[in-house]
């Protein structure tokens, strides 16, 4: 705009091109703490590692979480996405916590198979007190792996209505997995939870379903899709003779 000599007077001056960095101060918390020093810094991080609590209480809380997200969602897939997002930050934090608790040195897994072992065994034990039931590589896509849980604890008291039979609330656990894998630097395309049987978790095995399905109506597959970066790194490891 050549005719303009200067900025019109009512336009506020441009922000300076940089923001001044304040001189660094040592971290100073403004939080009050009780005189007994009952804060998170004064407790052993491993204190509740194996403490049990009531499964029904978890179920009520989990139900509340589902109801909350259900009320904000328009579709089954949106509920699942929201549950995944709810679990995700837990996974990010759990990776560090679980590595810290490892007997051996806290080295994060860098190979896909190490990570899968870690999830299948260490993570599952920490959350549910047992390892997952199986681990398989996807047939069609090289970047896909599957972890099987015959009876996800989180679905213990869930009855999903027929019109929503595809909904698998273990999407929350899938979100935790995704957080763990991302935090370990595997840049996941996504982790999702699916019913193993076509009839969904309702256990409505009508007719001659296969035996496996009848025994584990709630059997769930966690599908882990690794991102391109992770796959390329894996190739490089292999090429390097790793």
């Amino acid at each position, binding site marked *: 705009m050549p005719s303009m000599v200067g900025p019109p007077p009512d336009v506020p001056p441009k922000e300076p091109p940089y923001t001044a960095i304040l001189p660094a101060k040592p971290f100073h918390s403004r939080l009050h703490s009780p005189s007994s020093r009952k804060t998170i810094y004064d407790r052993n991080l491993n204190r509740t590692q194996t403490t049990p609590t009531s499964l*029904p209480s978890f*179920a009520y809380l*989990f*139900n509340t979480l*589902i*109801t909350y997200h*259900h009320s904000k969602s328009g579709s089954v897939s949106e509920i699942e996405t929201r549950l995944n997002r709810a679990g995700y930050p837990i996974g990010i934090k759990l990776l560090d916590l679980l590595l810290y608790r490892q007997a051996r040195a806290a080295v994060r897994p860098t190979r896909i198979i190490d990570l899968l072992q870690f999830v299948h065994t260490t993570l599952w034990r920490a959350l549910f007190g047992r390892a997952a039931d199986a681990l398989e590589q996807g047939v069609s896509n090289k970047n896909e792996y599957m972890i099987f849980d015959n009876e996800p604890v989180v679905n213990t008291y869930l*009855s999903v*209505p027929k019109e929503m039979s595809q909904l698998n609330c273990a999407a929350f656990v899938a979100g935790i997995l995704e957080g763990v894998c991302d935090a370990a630097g595997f840049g996941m395309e996504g982790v999702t939870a699916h019913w193993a049987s076509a009839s969904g978790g309702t256990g409505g095995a009508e007719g001659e379903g296969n035996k496996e399905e009848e025994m584990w109506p709630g059997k769930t597959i966690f599908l882990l899709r690794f991102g391109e970066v992770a796959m390329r790194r894996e190739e490089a490891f292999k090429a390097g003779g790793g």
Partner: protein
Amino acid sequence: MSVYSFYIFDRHTECIYSKRFTAANNTQSSRGSTLQNGDVPASLRKASKDLDETKLIFGTIFSLRRMAKQLGGADDQFLSYRTGEYKLHYFETPTQLKFVMLTDPRVGNMRTVLHQIWATLFVEYVVKSPLAPAEHTGGKGVANELFEGGLERFMVSMGLLPR
């Protein structure tokens, strides 16, 4: 042994579940259906025509319940009453859910049966279902598949319904 009908009322005096069983052709119908010709006593059949049956039943148990407390003390509950045509069984939870079952007059004490329907079917499948509302206004959320299926299997296993 046969069961004619089954009702659940909530603490707001609302009927949140009802089911009628007709033994003759072994079909069952939930809430809002009309009675079919089975061995449902004529008196009841007539009553259902003249009055809203659930209202009548609620009125009856409400009065009996009060009478039982007045005569037997605050903790007393009536268990059942019998006419020539049918027997009404009653169980109330501390949360004032009221379970009512109408059966053949020869049927024995059904209190444990009703307690079990509450503790193992209602609590597991209705109360714990996350997508059912906490209060069942208009019966919403009670008649879900798991509860209906569980109830039927339970009744069959107790010999109350034909296999």
